[in-house]
């Protein structure tokens, strides 16, 4: 007879998820599963809508990374209106979108590190949850809490200035952008009183990296070994191999660095990637077709991006990248907790990109949109904070969307997160008759490293949509409840 332990909800990750751990009669871990409640109905929701509405509509999908969905949809619509695949836009269009995207990356990564990860690093994973949170950080390390708040605010303000507003931003439109950046808006970010300016954000991003590296030095055993397992890695890279979070070609490498997807055009992503459905999860399991279901799964996100790219095109982040790569002697990094390190290097890179872009006069240009020969299908990919995000649409002759396929970042990380949970559960729970809070938290820590966004579209007071599914040992659904 197996015993089932259920941890739910997973604290400090986005949305709603459930982890089940099945123990055998000897209290060893028999099976683990991360169940993610992902609302797949959105792909149907956009059908029948005019294509030009997609970049605004898709933001309803998620209140956490609406900008990523906004831009991925806009990139797909660029193709449909004949404006090319990212490189065809006007300089103002391209750079405004990049500024918006790097603002999103900066705020999202900052939030994750300062307010989701730093409590664990500062107080220890087994500390009282009552103190192991951002309020605890504010009480004992006020400077860090303030930095987190201000970095997040800075990124949010960049988004507001480029997308037009916080909710339902309309900045990106098929073929371009609908506003430029005024001199006043530019100076708000470049010349704002300390600490609210781009230079300060670069310095704080450097400080966060130093904080992490110091922690790593003192806790290398844990950081290097916790949920360390080999995997493939996939992301966009710029055509010359540089890290590029907005546009590029698709590249995947295996755990030793061998290219297994060699800089292909993402318009044909479906030739290289498939999604497997499993009975116990709403979320699909993507894999590289050439390798197959069993071994073709891959990681996306910061760890993957720093494994696939050859260099980072901003000087401070490149310097940190060299240190990071030297740690694994140039080989791909498969250490789960190094995701935090990679994320902070990307945070620094984003701050540098924002600062440099703000100085570019193209942002004040007034040539905002290009159009070309329309077609009926387009794919838009972007590196969202959590990893590669795919948007694929088809339209009919009446300009209405007839098909939408979205592979979101967290879906791409589905198998790695499940493997991570299994790795940690076996390492910490085998043979134990009592499940303690620190042990349970360790499972959550590995999930949190991926910063998953587990679908969270409504949050009204008293309404916490959570579906609980109960399966027997034959994977048969025996109960399902909504909470």
């Amino acid at each position, binding site marked *: 007879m197996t015993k089932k332990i259920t941890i739910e*909800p997973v*604290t*400090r*990750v*986005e*949305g*709603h998820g459930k982890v089940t751990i099945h123990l055998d009669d000897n209290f060893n871990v028999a099976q683990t599963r991360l169940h993610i409640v992902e609302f797949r*109905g*959105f792909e149907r*929701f956009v059908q029948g809508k005019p294509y030009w509405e997609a970049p605004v*509509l898709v*933001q*309803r*999908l998620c*209140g*956490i990374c*609406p900008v990523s969905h906004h831009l991925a949809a806009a990139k797909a619509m660029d193709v449909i209106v004949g404006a090319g695949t990212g490189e065809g836009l006007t300089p103002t269009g391209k750079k405004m979108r990049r500024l918006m995207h790097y603002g999103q990356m900066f705020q999202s990564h900052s*939030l994750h590190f300062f*307010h*989701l990860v730093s409590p664990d690093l500062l107080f220890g994973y087994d500390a009282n*949850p*009552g103190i192991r*949170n*951002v*309020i605890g950080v*504010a*009480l004992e390390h*006020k400077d860090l*809490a*303030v930095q*987190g*708040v*201000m970095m*997040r*605010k800075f990124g*949010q303000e960049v988004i507001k200035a480029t997308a037009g507003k*916080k*909710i*339902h931003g309309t900045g990106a439109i098929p073929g371009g952008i609908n506003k430029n950046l005024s001199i006043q808006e530019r100076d708000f970010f470049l010349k704002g009183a300390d600490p609210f300016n781009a230079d300060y954000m670069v310095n704080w991003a450097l400080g966060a990296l130093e904080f992490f590296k110091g922690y790593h030095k003192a806790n290398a055993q844990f950081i290097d070994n916790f949920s360390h397992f080999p995997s493939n890695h996939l992301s966009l890279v710029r055509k010359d191999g540089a890290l590029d979070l907005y546009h590029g070609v698709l590249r995947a490498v295996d755990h030793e660095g061998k290219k297994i997807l060699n800089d292909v055009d993402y318009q044909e992503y479906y030739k290289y990637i498939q999604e497997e459905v499993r009975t116990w999860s709403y979320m699909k399991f993507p894999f590289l077709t050439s390798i197959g279901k069993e071994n073709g799964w891959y990681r996306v996100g910061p760890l993957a991006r720093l494994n696939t790219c050859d260099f980072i095109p901003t000087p401070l982040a490149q310097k940190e990248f060299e240190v990071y790569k030297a740690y694994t002697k140039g080989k791909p990094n498969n250490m789960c907790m190094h995701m935090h390190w990679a994320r902070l290097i990307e945070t620094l890179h984003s701050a540098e990109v924002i600062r440099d872009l703000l100085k570019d006069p193209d942002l004040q240009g007034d040539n905002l949109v290009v159009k070309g020969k329309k077609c009926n299908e387009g794919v838009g990919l972007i590196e969202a904070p959590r990893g590669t995000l795919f948007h694929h649409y088809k339209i009919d002759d009446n300009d209405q969307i007839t098909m939408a396929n979205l592979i979101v970042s967290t879906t791409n990380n589905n198998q790695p997160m499940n493997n991570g949970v299994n790795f940690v559960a076996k390492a910490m729970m085998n043979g134990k008759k009592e499940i303690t809070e620190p042990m349970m938290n360790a499972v959550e820590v590995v999930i949190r490293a991926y910063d998953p*966004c587990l679908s*969270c*579209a*409504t*949050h*009204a*007071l*008293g*309404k*916490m949509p959570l579906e609980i599914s109960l399966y027997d040992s034959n994977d048969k659904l025996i109960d399902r409840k909504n909470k």
Partner: protein
Amino acid sequence: MKKEIIIYGYGNPGRQDDGLGNAFIEHLEEWAQENRFDWMDFDSNYQLNIEDAELIADRKVAIFVDASVEDIDDFCVTVVNPEAAQIEFTMHAVSPSFVLQLCNEIYHNSPDTYLLHIKGYEWEFKEEISENAIKNMNKALYYLKDILKAGSMDLINENLSKSVILSHC
């Protein structure tokens, strides 16, 4: 220099009545502009987050507005208590209590903070707010406009506090 009062609605307008808070702010801001009440700040977002601690710092009054599925008739007002802050299920979205407590801890000041709950009914992937929810929102708008007209933060606070006691909750 920040304005003394901020009214902040949050929710996802793409999920029907979940967008009540955002719609409320749109209407109230329009009303304030028409009446040249430029001493009020407004904001809205999908959800609250940590940076909102900075947004409410150094103000006298903060009023959050959110959709509610609680068992209330139409709307009600409650005082936001920082002591009630829970360890959040997710830090990508936090509660008004959490925002207030964080504000207290890092800025060492905080406004008198209230939460206006507006009853909603429908939560599907649609953009329109349900008819009954609109009625509730209009009642809440009428109520809050009447209080805000006073113009003085002391009077606004006093009247909001009275409403809490006589709340529709």
